């Protein structure tokens, strides 16, 4: 193989999921006769999948520690939502107090499970399976098996991306294009470009190898995507409020995993726990943080969920854990831990979202959709495992 072929191979390997995402998007764009990327559909892609983005980010931390998953998140989402709805509707608790209680409830549940996993070393699968059963049951108890509507809590609903009016109001409202949204996009691109330039300069000063052209191309492409995305949103009703929450989660956790010592520890534990321990790092604490944090983010996802449905029901959140886990693995997280990034997971979640949306628009049968999603998940992990081993059949 000549060097350019090797380079192409490396490029394909590194950006596989992005390439797949682009191809899948084009595929559905054609199959749906251009409906997929209509402003309304782009907007609903966000609203429908907000919970996936949030949960998958938390799940990534668990998976990083060694391919461990949290099966309880769907039930915790439901339970936290139920607690919040009951507090707001039946006990007339102030919504901000209710929000705080919901977050604390989720975090406490997370910490409870995390304690067993991290310090007593009960396998996560079993601990969270128990949580999955228990909190599903408790949700039913809290709601008394009924639906509690929170339609009247308009502030809450709008704040977390539910109802018809869940968009950031246009400050320059003239009814047409949402100017705030466009400005937001331009601002985001500006910040992004400045950060990239500063980073590249520092790298150059440090004598970093690697081509700068690649970085520049990457920066330009990402900027174009951000702008196009904001333009689409502006054509609909603007920025969905829930997008703000998703962005905060993605940016904060992207930063933590990429740039902080704690973030580094998650990767280290998953990469080689013994070596990490012998480097003076408290590995128990790392597990504890991962699962406690999962509870916290499950609470946020719970709020987003009841806002979107403007009610709490004992059946909400079913299979949410699977969406989150699937997104992580499709997004390149290793099933053995130690590998995976927040941007990767976002791409994984988006890919799942597009496949869902595309198939729904095409009118594909619900059951077939599940089959396709399952196939995509399996294919992604096969790819991950085989490409790392370099051989198709294991000889271990």
């Amino acid at each position, binding site marked *: 193989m000549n060097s350019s072929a090797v380079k192409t191979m490396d490029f394909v390997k590194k950006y596989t999921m992005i390439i797949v995402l682009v191809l899948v998007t084009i595929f559905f764009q054609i199959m749906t006769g251009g409906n997929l990327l209509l402003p309304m559909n782009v907007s609903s892609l966000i609203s429908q999948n907000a919970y996936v983005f949030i949960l998958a980010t938390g799940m990534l931390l668990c998976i990083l520690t060694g391919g461990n998953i949290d099966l309880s998140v769907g039930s915790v989402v439901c339970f936290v939502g139920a607690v919040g709805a009951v507090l707001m509707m039946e006990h007339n608790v102030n919504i901000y107090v209710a929000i705080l209680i919901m977050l604390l409830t989720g975090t406490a549940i997370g910490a409870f499970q995390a304690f067993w996993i991290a310090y007593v070393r009960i396998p996560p699968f079993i601990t969270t399976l128990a949580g999955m059963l228990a909190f599903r049951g408790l949700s039913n108890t809290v709601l008394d098996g009924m639906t509690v509507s929170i339609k009247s809590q308009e502030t809450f609903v709008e704040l977390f991306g539910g109802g018809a009016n869940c968009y950031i109001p246009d400050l320059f409202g003239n009814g047409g294009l949402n100017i705030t949204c466009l400005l937001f996009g331009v601002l985001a691109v500006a910040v992004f470009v400045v950060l990239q330039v500063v980073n590249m300069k520092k790298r150059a000063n440090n004598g970093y190898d690697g081509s700068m052209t690649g970085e520049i191309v990457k920066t330009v492409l990402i900027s174009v995507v951000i702008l196009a995305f904001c333009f689409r949103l502006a054509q609909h009703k603007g920025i969905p409020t829930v997008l703000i929450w998703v962005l905060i989660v993605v940016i904060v956790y992207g930063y933590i995993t990429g*740039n902080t*010592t704690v973030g580094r520890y998650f990767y280290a534990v998953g*990469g080689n726990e*013994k070596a990490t321990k*012998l*480097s003076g790092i408290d590995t128990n604490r790392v597990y504890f943080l991962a699962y406690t944090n999962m509870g916290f983010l499950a609470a946020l996802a719970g709020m987003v969920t009841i806002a979107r449905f403007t009610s709490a029901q004992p059946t909400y959140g079913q299979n949410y854990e699977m969406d989150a886990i699937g997104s992580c693995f499709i997004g390149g997280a290793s099933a053995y831990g*130690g*590998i995976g990034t927040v941007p990767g997971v976002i791409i994984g979640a988006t890919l799942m979202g597009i496949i869902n949306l595309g198939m729904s628009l095409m009118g594909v049968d619900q059951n077939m959709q599940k089959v396709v999603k399952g196939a995509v998940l399996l294919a992604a992990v096969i790819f991950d495992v085989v490409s790392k081993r370099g051989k198709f059949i294991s000889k271990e």
Partner: protein
Amino acid sequence: MANILLEMKNITKTFPGVKALDNVNLQVEEGEIHALVGENGAGKSTLMNVLSGIYPFGTYEGDIIYNGEVCQFGDIKDSEHKGIVIIHQELALVPYMTIGENMFLGNERGTSYKIDWNETYDKAAGYLETVGLHESPRTLIKDIGVGKQQLVEIAKALAKNAKLLILDEPTSSLNEEDSKALLDLLLKFKQNGLTSIIISHKLNEVSYVADKITVIRDGATIETLDKLTDDVSEPRIIKGMVGREIADRFPKRDAAILQGEVMMEVKDWNVYHPLYHERKVVDHVDFKVRKGEIVGIAGLMGAGRTEFAMSLFGKSYGDNISGQLFINGEEVHLETVKDAIKHKLAYVTEDRKGNGLILSNPIKINTTLANLEAVSKRSIIDKHKEYAVAVEYKEKLKTKCPTVEQNVGNLSGGNQQKVLLAKWMFADPDILILDEPTRGIDVGAKYEIYCIMNQLVAEGKSVVMISSEMPEILGMCDRIYVMNEGRMVGELDGKEATQEIIMSHIISSK
């Protein structure tokens, strides 16, 4: 002359970067007990793995001639089919299965859709009788001791119709009495025509049981001694095992910096096994190392050296640790690895892949892992600084790699070892415990690592070197402790020590 059962001709086996076996020849006659001796890492186990098909045909060069025909074993089933059965040092029994189930695991009695339990247990009882183990075949493996488990392994081998039995360190975990029983059992089987190859460090056992002794050193056969015609006394075997010239394999160092004050001192140190609480792994050890000194700990595998070092390093090994530890004259209590690092102690593991490095991560991340604070501010990592640090150490240690972004898993053993050293040097310790720092790396890289050690002591640091390779202990150390079965059985001056003296310390301590 008796019939030659097995001949291994010109066996050469290379691992990436290391030639483990170099034109090894071995001849085993039918009905004899043939011992294979050599230092750790000499290539004994590799040779047996080639023979049993664990390293399949095609991954090595040379011929295996068994019973007159050239064999090409693709896996362990092939060799077992011919009656070659290997019993590994770590027993391969399933604890929660019965003796009978274990004995016929992979070789089940009955048909593939119905195991015949009566036949299984009847036959198992028969084989247990043969090996002289009086237990019900329905007893769970976990409920019998190690000595009896070893007998079950042998019974299992017999159940596979073994004609050639290979035992890798069969007595390493047995006490005197069980060892004797096992060896006598081998002698009894010999009368019945069974051929065995036994790998052992315990030379008294080798002299006792073996008809012929083949010595392997540095991946090559040195000699084969015959009990009938040659001198097979322990000193004679030792000479074969260790006798090699040491010429300039070790860099010189200024002796002037020596004789500093005591940097670390250990008094009456005791450590118990983390699982078997009654087993003492480190036994009343006293130890000290001075500033600017390289101190060696010699001994055989399993002597308790690694366990001793790790128990010092923030109690990362063992239970019920007692004793006193002084650093710079002050008594310290290092409860966690973090404490140990804070007190400027570093332990560079012998198992760089298992305990040392994150193979799936790049060099730069491995370099800073033990001292991440030094490249971060308020828990935020300065990645540019981290990169610069990694490059600095890469150049300092002459690590061969395209960039520090390279994953450690893709490096050769020697370069991995350098990354591991870089990681601990960056943690800025005063005392470095290097556990087998040159295991499995080539001669050139070894020399470079010795140079780094000299540099470290020149900076006034203390180095403790644990090694099973006696030449390097002799070549590098100012002072040498000899450890055996958890005890320090000798302390020698580096200049006066010889391999024979060390070996005799180990052997006479038993």
